[in-house]
């Protein structure tokens, strides 16, 4: 599994989201993802992460050992920069 594959899956599951995934060990199983989407507006962190996990579906349970997630609304993303 590579980072771009995960990026595509998240982007497909959350249309319009900005997704950036890094393979931080280079081993194809530990990833770090930044996901920016309007859909997170008004949602808590648990619900936001669940949306991303659902987009990854079975891959999350079987092929990805670890995914560090950062989920931001567009407004939060602007404030961070």
């Amino acid at each position, binding site marked *: 599994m590579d980072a771009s594959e995960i990026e595509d899956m998240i982007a497909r599951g959350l249309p319009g989201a900005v997704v950036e995934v890094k393979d931080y060990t280079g081993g194809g199983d530990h990833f770090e993802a930044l996901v920016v989407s309007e859909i997170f507006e008004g949602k808590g*962190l648990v619900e936001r*992460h*669940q949306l991303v996990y659902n987009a990854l579906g079975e891959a999350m*349970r079987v092929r990805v050992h*670890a995914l*560090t997630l950062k989920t931001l609304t567009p407004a939060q993303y602007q404030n961070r920069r």
Partner: protein
Amino acid sequence: MSDTRERIESAIKRNKIMIFMKGNRSFPQCGFSAATVQIFDELGEPYETADVLSDPELRDEIKRYSNWPTIPQVYIDGKFVGGCDIVRELYENGELEPMVKSSAGASARN
């Protein structure tokens, strides 16, 4: 209801802070579990842990129970708080401490 499910519900009811993790607090078997217990050690409130590696049924059932695919999983006051990323984020922005303190103080005030 399965026995495992009952064990989960009983554990999160009995313990204000309950952590389902890989390994235990002295010997965490995964970096994310280690990072999580480290945060709770710093907060200094009592917590309980359950090792999912020594209990494959628990490992499967907790993922279904929380609708959450990864370990560790943290419950405070019987409520699912999240995994390592969320705990870290709540700790860094100062939201976690009042959650564990109010959980510890709730019975004392009543």
